[in-house]
């Protein structure tokens, strides 16, 4: 029942297969809901991600290798999405797997931080990277509250930031993001962000024993396009605890407060010119 629900939502949200006009990705904020209680840690999403992003990868069977769960991994230039196992079977009966990638923040600090506009928040919610603008300062990485950006340190001449771009080229052609499409247990649901949040809360209401009452990403850091459901506090699963405001809100308020209409710098210039004039007269008298 749950599975069919998830499938339906992702189908309904698909522009190509949907009969409703309001799911046009050009206007609708899209997102992905991850049900961590469903994920079996098969890592098929890692394979699909590498394939869709043109990263070198091994055959799909190699992703059955569970030894990678021994350590906590983070996205790398070669694998933009990785699955971790923060809770293993030994500690608590059933293991919990967590797929991580760029969260596509609503008010993304990386977008706010980038001085040349290489990071962009698109109308469909995807945060994308334009290497042709990038100067390689890595301030976006410093700013990222989830630390999901990776950098090609080994490229001597033209290193790039690498990140999940929500498979924009696929969704524009009516396809699902590669990871969502391949997931065999439908732990991932692609759809309009608003609908996903409503749906997530319905799921929690239907199965209060299965989930904690928290949709991660609904408000964290001002909200994210990727949303998570889990059976235990997210802090136990390696998710950062973030307030409802994006850190970019603070810096933008400071910057635009100081430089509004360029009034403060002009005033300071005026004051100094005045001081200069007054002390000059004084020193000659």
């Amino acid at each position, binding site marked *: 029942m749950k599975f069919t629900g998830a499938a339906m939502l992702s189908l309904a949200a698909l522009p190509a297969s949907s009969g409703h006009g309001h799911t046009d990705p050009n206007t609708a904020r899209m997102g992905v809901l991850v049900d961590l209680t469903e994920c079996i840690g098969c890592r098929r999403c890692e394979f699909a991600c590498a394939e869709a992003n043109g990263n070198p990868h091994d055959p799909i069977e190699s992703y059955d290798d569970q030894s990678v769960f021994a350590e906590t991994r983070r996205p790398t230039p070669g694998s933009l999405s990785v699955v971790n196992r923060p809770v293993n079977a030994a500690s608590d009966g059933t293991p919990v797997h967590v797929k991580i990638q760029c969260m596509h923040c609503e008010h993304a600090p990386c977008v706010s931080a980038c001085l040349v506009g290489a990071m962009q928040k698109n109308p469909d919610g995807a945060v994308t990277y334009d290497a042709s603008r990038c100067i*390689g300062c890595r301030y976006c990485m410093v700013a990222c509250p989830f630390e999901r950006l990776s950098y090609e340190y080994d490229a001597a001449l033209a290193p790039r930031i690498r990140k999940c771009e929500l498979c924009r080229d696929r969704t524009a052609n009516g396809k699902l993001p590669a990871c969502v499409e391949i997931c065999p247990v439908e732990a991932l649901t692609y759809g309009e962000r608003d609908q996903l949040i409503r749906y997530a809360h319905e799921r929690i209401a239907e199965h209060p024993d299965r989930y904690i009452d928290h949709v991660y990403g609904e408000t964290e850091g001002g909200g994210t396009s990727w949303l998570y459901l889990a059976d235990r506090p997210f802090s136990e699963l390696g998710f950062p605890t973030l307030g409802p405001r994006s850190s970019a809100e603070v810096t933008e308020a400071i910057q635009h407060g100081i430089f509004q209409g360029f009034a403060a710098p002009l005033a*300071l210039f005026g004051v*100094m010119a005045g001081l200069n004039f007054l002390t000059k007269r004084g020193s000659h008298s």
Partner: protein
Amino acid sequence: MTTMPIHHNSNSPKYFTPGVWIVTAVAAVGGLCLLYRFTFGLGAATNLSDAYPWGIWIGIDVACGVALAAGGFTSAFLAHLLHRDAYHAVVRPALLTAAIGYTFVALGVMTDLGRFWAMWHVMLPWMWQPNSVLFEVALCVMCYLTVLYIEFLPIACERFIGRVRLPGLLGVLNRPVDRVLRALDSTLARVMTVFVILGVLLSCMHQSSLGTLMVITGDKLHPLWQSPYLPLMFLLSAFAVGYPMVIFESIIAHRSLRLRIETRVLSMLARLTPIILGLYLVVKVLDLVRRGVAPLLLENSPASNLFLAEVTLGVLAPMLIFSVPRLRRSIPWLFTGASLVILGVVMNRLNVFLIAYSPLDLTASYTPAWTEIAVTTGFIAMTVLIYRFVVLNFPVIEGLAVPYRNREQHDAGTPNRTRVLNDRLPTASPNGDLVRPSHETNRIDRAVAQGAAS
């Protein structure tokens, strides 16, 4: 001061001394490591990672570099904007330090940029992203660097006016070039006030924004440092470190060049420092209280100890030293106090940019690679070498007999008289706004005497 005795013979100091050779070696090693970085990339030359995207090239070369170059605008503010003539002696060395310092800040940034060849994107209006704090910092630093070079132009004009000697056939251009220099010099003298004010303004803007830069890291920066008031604290600490930096550098330069140290001017600068440090301290304490994190100071953690060390060594101790008139007149104490302020600001910038910044993955760590350290020390060595070259060849430090003067004396057939910079030609300063004509030096003497007496 017009007749300041020169304690060595008319031969100006040699460029190379054993110490300078060591500095040259450090610079050379840095240069090789720089070559390595640009050939093999950041991955090969640094220990940077996705968890620690910024290392010492940003933490030291850029963040500390910008702060420690604050002597330029703070002394220009006193001497040129407020017309405190007593401080004229320190303005040129401070300006030179700032110009060289910011040049190396720019080089440091370039070294750290993965796509350094795209650096010019910052100058393209269609690339601008005005929400970005870094955008403002980058633009301000570029503009300020330009202003610093413009402020240095009169010194270059003074050096060459009346002494243009182009080699070989180019010699026919000596007169035209001289005329151009004179025109440039008199034009600059008329408009320089605008550039001085602009320099102070741009400094205030980016010194503070350098603090805003790390606000966006949110909880990744330790709560003892993370604050929306970081820009104000960065600005105040830049003000505070300006004069100590002038004192520090002046004592070293005068020792190295065997000149008498202008203790009276330096002690006047030292007297101003506790006031600014005190203001900085008040803001820092109020901020901790306002955010309710003051109790963290008592938890005896590495972070709390670092914070307390930063404030005790870098703020309280020099405030104390510089508040005692007797200590302010002692060169060793002046040097100690100035070094402590510098240490405090360096600790603060390193804490904010590197040490108090912790990635979500607490197992991740960053220790700079030896190549990173070598590039940083190499850059510092290069600033020293360039500083020494410029003061030995341009009229920067008062009382220093620079070689071209000697050469001119030989040309003029007056080999036995040492001429010092104070009696330079009045033609070099037609307006007299930024340069000091000789009649002003007497006023300086009086002002210095008054300042020391009060």
